[in-house]
């Protein structure tokens, strides 16, 4: 203790200097706005730096969950975008036929209700009178295949009488020889992937894997691929063949469809009505 006192006494100049100097600096920092703010700022900088570094570390550690949540959000947004696209695209796709004069307009619509398990299946789409849809218009799948006819129309929605319906009959032909038949569904099976082509006369040569396309005689444009033949046979007591085809389009996963607006549909209908119905 004594030695300590001697030591302090001997170097009292230094210790006193330290004491007074620190006192002076404390006064400076405490009582002068600028120095105070500067001191606080530098402190903040240090603290901020520490926090920032911690944050980087935390970010890295949380990368997994953040990625997951981002992916989920991405998926959600993409889905929403897709839906918006379907809803908003009232844009009509115009197809000029190579024949020159005949013109079809395609209108995309989203399927909002669909069924494949019933005997008579109806599809509902999100386009209606407001979008220019009328009863009797043909509906096709985006890629290949026919869907059906417009059956009922409301202001913004429409029912499609699906191909998978008792009353639906579409005029089709064999692609290779234009032999004319009609496409029906549900005669003997109710498999939504298969349909039947009726009324093709016996003398035509029909092979398995032959393509069936629309004929253009019903309101569908000609040449739309419908399906390929998987089974042929002569129907007993009939002069036409019973041809089983596999449909190109999948009704179970139908997401959106094209409604075809035919410029001359009304004209065709009018003409057809002048022909007396023989049946």
């Amino acid at each position: 203790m004594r030695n300590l006192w001697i030591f302090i006494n001997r170097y009292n100049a230094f210790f006193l200097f330290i004491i007074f100097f620190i006192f002076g600096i404390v006064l400076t920092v405490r009582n002068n706005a600028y120095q105070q703010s500067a001191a606080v700022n530098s402190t903040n900088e240090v603290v901020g730096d520490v926090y920032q570094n911690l944050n980087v570390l935390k970010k890295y550690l949380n990368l997994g969950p953040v990625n997951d949540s981002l992916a989920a959000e991405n998926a959600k947004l993409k889905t929403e975008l897709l839906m918006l696209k379907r809803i908003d695209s009232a844009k009509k796709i115009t197809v000029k036929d190579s024949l020159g004069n005949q013109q079809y307009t395609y209108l995309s619509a989203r399927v909002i209700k669909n069924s494949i398990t019933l005997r008579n299946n109806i599809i509902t789409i999100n386009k209606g009178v407001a979008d220019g849809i009328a009863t009797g218009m043909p509906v096709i799948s985006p890629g290949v295949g026919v869907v059906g006819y417009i059956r009922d129309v409301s202001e913004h929605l429409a029912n499609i009488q699906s191909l998978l319906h008792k009353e639906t009959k579409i005029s089709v032909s064999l692609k290779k020889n234009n032999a004319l038949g009609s496409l029906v569904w549900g005669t003997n099976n109710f498999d939504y992937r298969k349909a039947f082509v009726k009324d093709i006369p016996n003398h035509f040569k029909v092979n398995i894997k032959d393509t069936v396309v629309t004929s253009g005689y019903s309101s569908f444009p000609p040449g739309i691929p419908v399906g390929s033949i998987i089974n042929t046979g002569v129907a007993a007591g009939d002069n036409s063949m019973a041809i089983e085809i596999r449909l190109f389009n999948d009704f179970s996963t139908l997401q959106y469809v094209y409604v075809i607006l035919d410029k001359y549909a009304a004209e065709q209908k009018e003409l057809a009505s002048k022909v007396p119905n023989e049946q």
Partner: protein
Amino acid sequence: MATPFVYILFLMLLPFGIPNLLLYLIAFLTGLTLDAFYDTLGVNAAACVALAFVRISFISITLNRDGFDEPEPTLGNMGFKWFILYAILCVFSHHLVLFFLETFRLSELSYTLLRCFLSGIFTLFTLILIEFIFYNRKAR
């Protein structure tokens, strides 16, 4: 840019025999008085305390503590060489602390050092001028 702080001559010329504590107290109070007028509370006080420390150190190193021949470290008493060194050390220690505390950041280091140097020269020049005036008057 260059401001002379002549008041430190008062601290420099305090008698040799003054106790350290008293010297520090006087230095601190002098600085505080200056601060009161400069509105820079603590800056001049700290600078003066630094000056006091340098003064004590320098005197204890260069002079024999027991036998002070002269009462005060004036130019006339101590001779030009000693006094110049003494003044340079005191002035620059004081100015360094003063300007750095006033600026309170290292980013303006060169500017602060320049200010310190120019002011120090100015102060030094003034101090020596004053010393010479009194030297002449007191000449025996």
